[in-house]
């Protein structure tokens, strides 16, 4: 028995994973013990989420094995994982909004024939017990629709309990939660640990990790770089391990002068999304917009660009007060917006690279309504050359290009509009490190040529390296405006985390 207790619940050996030839995880070995809360830390794209999803059967590893209690298991689907006692709790929980809470709890359990009666009474009773066990008050007979994210997470956790999971993986569960909800979650996590279950906790927030976890594993660029007890590592150690490489110092181009105000926002509000947002961006200036996921940064950008207009406040572009209610109008004012989710809001997947690049300048390629092929081709070719977009042909569908080159094409689209204000929302997400550096150079050049740039990023090193100033948002408000000289990871994080959360960290 002693041996069994010492034996790791999960031991992963040599796990590697590639997507479309890009290796995002390289030979990761990791043991998870019984009754521990284990944090996975790393920058965005470091591989921690991919690793967690492999454990939960969402992805299959390209190479490597996972052993459960010493025997190698084939986790080929989320259902298989669940049967093996592994549950993944997504940041945005999976739910069936039209079914009741109790049904959502039991869905997926394989019991009896398809025509078997639904044991409503027993199901409700069991669901109530689970909720009581977790100490949360949710009416299990109501529909999932309208439940808060926190409550939906609780339902997911209850699911894990109901199927008696020994490993519960929580992928950034705290991002959308209020401090009080985080506290409840942590209490439950500790109880589950004390029952002997294993919890994998993925987070960016060091203070949360300190408050909750026993051991940490740090990922960097697809490698596991360290695993240690949390007490043995200082914050500085962890950050050093996460960043690893000294980020190449971004050199500002000589002669860049910060000019007059290009974009001025005053008291911009949109109930439920953000409120009282005021800031300005000057010509030649790169202003960062940091904060946690869900802090409302993207919503502000969407409002500025007219995708989802704000309901109150004022916007001034190049000294002119404007009301932006539609993207086409924003473009006319000299705004450009590279959206966060390229596949959803950026590219036309099946259309040619050429068409994708020229999509925002109908007036240039078709002055009289008819498209001038030669003009279009020249414009696209110039862009490809300038931004070093690698492709086989201008006529090939953009979906065939790599993520970095797709993103360059989107940037090219906006440069053709010659914008005076450029809003970049996570421009380097999902892009190879090599191409990232190219992007940093380009962003610098754009600022040097006198454009005002608003850079939204969750990657702190990126903000620190590129920005003249960093604004930080938290829960829909701007909580800090930090000059380049004062900006540090700590100062940004401190402003990004909702204030009352200090209690949790203690």
């Amino acid at each position, binding site marked *: 028995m002693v041996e069994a207790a010492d034996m790791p619940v999960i031991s992963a050996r040599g796990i590697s994973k590639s997507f*479309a*030839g*890009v290796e995002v995880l390289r030979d990761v070995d990791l043991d998870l013990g019984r009754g521990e809360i284990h944090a996975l830390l790393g920058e965005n794209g470091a591989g921690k989420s991919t690793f967690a999803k492999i454990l939960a059967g969402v992805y299959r590893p390209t190479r490597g094995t996972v052993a459960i209690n010493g025997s190698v298991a084939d986790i080929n689907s989320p259902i298989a994982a669940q049967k093996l006692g592994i549950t993944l709790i997504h940041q945005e929980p999976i739910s069936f909004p039209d079914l009741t809470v109790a049904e959502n709890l039991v869905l997926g359990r394989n019991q009896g024939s398809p025509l078997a009666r639904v044991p409503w009474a027993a199901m409700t009773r069991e669901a109530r017990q689970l909720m009581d066990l977790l100490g949360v008050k949710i009416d299990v007979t109501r529909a999932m629709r309208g439940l808060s994210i926190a409550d939906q997470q609780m339902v997911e956790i209850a699911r894990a309990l109901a199927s008696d999971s020994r490993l519960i993986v929580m992928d950034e569960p705290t991002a959308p939660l209020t401090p009080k909800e985080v506290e409840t979650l942590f209490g439950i996590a500790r109880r589950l640990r004390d029952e002997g279950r294993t919890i994998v906790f993925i987070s960016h927030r060091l203070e949360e990790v300190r408050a909750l976890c026993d051991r940490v594993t740090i990922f960097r660029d697809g490698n596991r770089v360290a695993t240690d007890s949390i007490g043995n590592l200082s914050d500085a150690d962890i950050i050093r391990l996460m960043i690893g*490489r000294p980020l*190449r110092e971004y050199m500002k181009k000589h002669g860049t002068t910060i000019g007059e105000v290009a974009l001025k926002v005053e008291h911009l509000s949109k109930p439920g999304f953000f409120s009282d947002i005021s800031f300005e961006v000057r010509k030649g200036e790169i202003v960062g917009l940091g904060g946690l996921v869900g802090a409302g940064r993207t919503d502000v950008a969407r409002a500025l*660009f007219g*995708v989802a207009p704000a309901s109150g406040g004022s916007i001034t572009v190049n000294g002119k007060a404007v009301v932006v209610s*539609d*993207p*086409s109008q*924003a*473009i006319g004012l000299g705004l450009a*917006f590279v*959206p966060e989710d390229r596949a*959803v*809001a*950026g*590219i*036309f*997947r*099946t*259309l040619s690279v050429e*068409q994708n690049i020229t*999509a*925002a300048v*109908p007036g240039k*390629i*078709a002055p009289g*309504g*008819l*498209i001038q092929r030669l003009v279009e081709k020249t414009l696209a070719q110039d862009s490809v050359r300038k931004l070093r977009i*690698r*492709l*086989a*042909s201008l*006529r*090939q*569908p953009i*979906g*065939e*290009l*790599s993520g*970095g*080159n797709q993103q360059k094409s989107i940037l090219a*689209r906006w440069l053709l509009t010659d914008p005076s204000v450029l809003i970049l929302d996570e421009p380097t997400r999902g892009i*190879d*490190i*090599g*191409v*990232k*550096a*190219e992007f940093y150079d380009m962003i610098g050049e754009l600022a040097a040529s006198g454009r005002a740039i608003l850079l939204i990023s969750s990657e702190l090193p990126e903000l620190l390296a590129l920005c003249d100033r960093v604004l930080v948002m938290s829960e829909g408000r701007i909580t800090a405006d930090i000059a380049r000289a004062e900006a540090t990871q700590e100062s940004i994080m401190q402003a990004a985390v909702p204030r009352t959360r200090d209690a949790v960290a203690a």
Partner: protein
Amino acid sequence: MSAMDTEVTGTTQDSAPARPRWQTLLIRPETMTFILLVLGVIAGGLLSPFFLDINYILSSFTLYAEFSIVALVLTMVIIAGEIDLSPAANMALSACIFAWMQQAGVPIPLAVLIGIGSGLLMGALNALFVIALQLPSIIVTIGTLTLYRGLAQIIAGDKSIRVPEWFIGIDKIMVLGIPLPVLIFIVEAIVLAIVLGGSIFGRQIYQIGTNEIAARHAGIRSRRIKLLLFLITGGVAAIAGIMTASRLGSVRYDLGLGGELQMVLMAMLGGTYIFGGRGSIIGTLLAAWLLSIMTNAMNTASWLPATQFCLLGVLLIVSIIVTNFIYSRTQR
């Protein structure tokens, strides 16, 4: 971050190789339609030498011209990612309104204008539901299809309304040796092919159909374009309805009954992608001729109308399956 890394990913990962040009040209649904059309003409020719007579080919197409005229604009609607099942009912209602008006003593030109105006209104109603209220066009136009046909039934009852002698026979008017409806169809096809293939409006239709969210982010006024498409469909359907009235000489509420199937079929058979973003006017043009020739051949071979009914249904399903298959092969 070294240049080396970039080089390596550059050569192996940055893009798939481009396909040979001939492949992209040849493996298209339109090519299939064209081959079928050739086969149809050959089969028809074996059946009766009439089928190789250009005059017969042109005059027999007048029966199909009205649906085909609408199918061309419907193609654009489908490429834009929407659908309109109501134009056949729209044809009936516009024609009924027109016939009713002229019977009530309204001068014919004015009655025609009122008919077309009502068609535009019907298009606008579809657009209101789909664009302003953001309901799925497929179910909205099922509703309006029932409504328009029902209104036509209220106006015309079970009787047919006659139109004056001199207004009858648009299909008998020959211009340059081509029956007028057929000429209208061909001219419309040329105009729309240029618009769809060569103008920025056409370009943006494809972009909206491929990814409407991205299109909106790129400053494309997708709602305005869709509104326009629904209006054009409504107006063109009304014109087609009045043309049908002229060809038949009288109007009943069941004018063009079941036409929505034929129109959708023409677009699908011509390789328009049901989920939007792909398709062409030339495809629909070929498909319209193909249908016309097939129907004639089947009539000549004295197949029952019922068999033809079946064939249309089967053809619709097979054509979407084939089109989907071809597109899924050529898109990664």
